[in-house]
């Protein structure tokens, strides 16, 4: 399947791009993260500490152990600092 993967804030800066299409068979967010980590050092750096990251599936906050089945858009970012 092909998923839109989005990056925000310092995750975007470390990886060096705001979004990309990723072809993957990963069953969960965590499995997708493992695939991305294996790609290049900049991905490994961005995903070094999952406790410092948040994930949204199709624009809803989710968890790293959530399944990717049917998901079209995954976004990774640090804890939010609005307000």
């Amino acid at each position, binding site marked *: 399947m092909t998923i839109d993967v989005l990056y925000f804030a310092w995750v975007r800066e470390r990886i060096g791009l705001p979004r990309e299409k990723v072809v993957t068979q990963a069953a969960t967010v965590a499995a997708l993260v493992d695939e991305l980590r294996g790609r290049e050092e900049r991905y490994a750096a961005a995903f070094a500490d999952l406790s410092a990251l948040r994930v949204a599936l199709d624009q809803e906050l989710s968890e790293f152990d959530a399944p990717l089945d049917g998901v079209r*858009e995954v976004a990774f970012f640090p804890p*939010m*600092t*609005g307000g």
Partner: protein
Amino acid sequence: MSVRVQAEPFDAGAETAGFTAAQHDAGAVVTFTGIVRDVEGGLLRMEIEHYPGMTQSAIARIAEEAVSRWSLADVLVIHRFGALTPGEPIMMVATAARHRAEAFAAAEFLMDYLKSRAPFWKKEITREGAAWVEARDADEDALRRW
């Protein structure tokens, strides 16, 4: 209920006036305005990044949750993104209710959730460099009281 996510500045006074004038059965209006504060080293600007596809709906859901918890006559949320300078309003919330306790509680609830659950990220640019604002444990803790 009105939610606006915008790059343009807004006038907290004019928004308060409009919101207040629109109320017919509310005895209490509470507003909160967040302002860009200067920081050590001298803030040149603050850059606010957001997640366009998610921001509006995430805020709307928080506002709907507030409406379901308290008896509110009206809710307004405005949040800016892009580059801001010290002294500029970043965001505001306004709540209207029959009595003050509801208006205050709902405004604080909205602020606590917007801080930690709306997809915005702040970066401070000073003469010494740029740094992402880190989320504070206190902001995450604040959610537990609701």
